[in-house]
C-alpha cells in the first residue's frame, strides 16, 4: 500500500513538473508567436499561421509522438532515455504556445487604438507603450481564457503516457492493471481535480488583484 502511494506520489511530481515547465516556456513563447502572427511581414505571418493551424488542428498526442521519434526517424539520432521528458516539455510548450498566442492576439487587438495614440502623443516609445500601457491591460482581459487553457493543461499532462513518461496517469494505469482495481485511477482523478481546484483558485486571486479598474 505504501509503495502504491509513493509510486503515485512520484507520478504526481512528474505531472506537476510537466505543468509548471510547460507554462514557464509556453507563456513567453506564446507572446512571441502572437507578435509573429500580427507581424506586417507577410512571410513571417504566413509561417506562424501555418504553425498555429498545425498545432491546433492535430491531436496533442500525435504531436508528442512526432516530437519524441523525430530525432531518430528524421535525423537518425539514437533517442536517449532522458529525452522522453524533454520531448514532453517541447511538445507541450509549442502546442500551448499556439493556443496562448491566439489568446494574446485577441487581447492585444481588443485594446482601443486610443491607448496607443495617447501614448504616442505623450512620447512613449513603441516598447514602452507595449509593456507599460498595453500589456498590463491585456493581462487583465485574457485571464479568464488563460485560466481555461491552464486547467486544460493540467488534464493534458496525462497524455505524456503515450511516450511512457511516468507521470500520474501512466503510473495509476499500471497500478490499476496490476491490482485489477480502479482505486489507483480514482486517486489519480482526485489528484487532477484538487490540482485544478488550486489552479482555479490562484487564477481567481489574480483576477481579483486586477479588479481595481475596469
Amino acid at each position, binding site marked *: 500500500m505504501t509503495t502504491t502511494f509513493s509510486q503515485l506520489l512520484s507520478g504526481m511530481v512528474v505531472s506537476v513538473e510537466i505543468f509548471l515547465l510547460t507554462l514557464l516556456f509556453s507563456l513567453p513563447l506564446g507572446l512571441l508567436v502572437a507578435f509573429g502572427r500580427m507581424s506586417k511581414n507577410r512571410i513571417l505571418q504566413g509561417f506562424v499561421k501555418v504553425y498555429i493551424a498545425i498545432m491546433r488542428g492535430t491531436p496533442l498526442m500525435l504531436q508528442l509522438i512526432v516530437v519524441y521519434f523525430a530525432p531518430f526517424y528524421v535525423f537518425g539520432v539514437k533517442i536517449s532515455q532522458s529525452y522522453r521528458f524533454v520531448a514532453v516539455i517541447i511538445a507541450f510548450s509549442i502546442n500551448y504556445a499556439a493556443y496562448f498566442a491566439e489568446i494574446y492576439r485577441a487581447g492585444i487587438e481588443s485594446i482601443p487604438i486610443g491607448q496607443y*495614440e*495617447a501614448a504616442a*502623443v*505623450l512620447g512613449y516609445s513603441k516598447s*514602452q507603450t507595449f509593456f*507599460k500601457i498595453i500589456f498590463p491591460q491585456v493581462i487583465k482581459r485574457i485571464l479568464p481564457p488563460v485560466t481555461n487553457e491552464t486547467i486544460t493543461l493540467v488534464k493534458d499532462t496525462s497524455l505524456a503516457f503515450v511516450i511512457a513518461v511516468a507521470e500520474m496517469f501512466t503510473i495509476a494505469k499500471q497500478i490499476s492493471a496490476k491490482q485489477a482495481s480502479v482505486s489507483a485511477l480514482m486517486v489519480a482523478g482526485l489528484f487532477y481535480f484538487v490540482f485544478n481546484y488550486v489552479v482555479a483558485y490562484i487564477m481567481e486571486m489574480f483576477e481579483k488583484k486586477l479588479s481595481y*479598474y475596469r
Partner: protein
Amino acid sequence: MEENNLLRIEHMKKHFGETAVLHDISLKVDKGEVVSVIGPSGSGKSTLLRCATLLTEMDDGNLIYEGRKAAYSEGGRSVYACKDELKEIKRSFGLVFQNFNLFPHYSVLQNITDAPVSVVGMGREEATAKARELLNMLGLSDKEDAYPCELSGGQQQRVAIARALALEPKLLFFDEPTSALDPELTGEVLAVIRRLAKEHMTMVIVTHEMDFAREVSDRILFIEKGYVIEEGTPDQLFASENPRVREFIGRIRR
C-alpha cells in the same frame, strides 16, 4: 518674423484611398494664440489635428514646430524628419482627446506622472509635486488616488488635460474636448480651457461649441471638405458674408 510661429502648417494634403480629406490646409499659430477650428463633421478637422500631432502622416505639405521641420514637402510628398528629431519635436505639443484616453490601469496621479518620469526622465518626486500642483489647479486634489473608471467624464477630461500639461507643451491641441460629455459636464472642462487661455497658453481647439469658440479664440478657422473656407477673428467670422459659414454657424447655434 516666421520664428514667432510656434506652429506652421503649409499646404497640408491628405488622402484616404481615393478620397481627399485635406486639400490644401495652411495654418500658422503664434505663441499665446488661441485658434479654434470649426466646420461640419467630415470636413477634415480631426484629420488636420491627427496630422499636426503626428498620429497620421500627411501626403504632402510642411509641418514646422518652432522652426523645426517635422515634415517638409519634397517632390510632391511630405518627407518626415528622423525618429529622434520627431521625438524632440513631439515635446512641443500636447493633445487632449475627445475620449480622454486615460490609462485605466493607472491612478490619476500615475496617469499624470508616468510620462514625465519615463519619457522625459524627470525625478519621481518632482513629477509628483508638479502633478499635485496641476490637480490642485484643476480642482481634483482629492482624486489623485482614484482610477479613471471612478471619475465622471468631466473629471476624466480634466485629468487628461493635466496629463498633457505635465509635459509642459508649448502648444496644446484639443480634439472636440467636450463632445463625449453630458451637457452638464461640459462647463467644467470649458472653464479649464478658458483659464488656460487667460494664462496665454497657446491652443488649437477643434470644437462644436460655437459660443465658446467665439469667446475664447483669437482666431477661428472654418473648414469644409478639406479646404479652409474662411479664417479670421471671431467677430469677422460670425459676421461672415459667406453663405456656407453663415448657414453652419446658424445651424449649430440654433
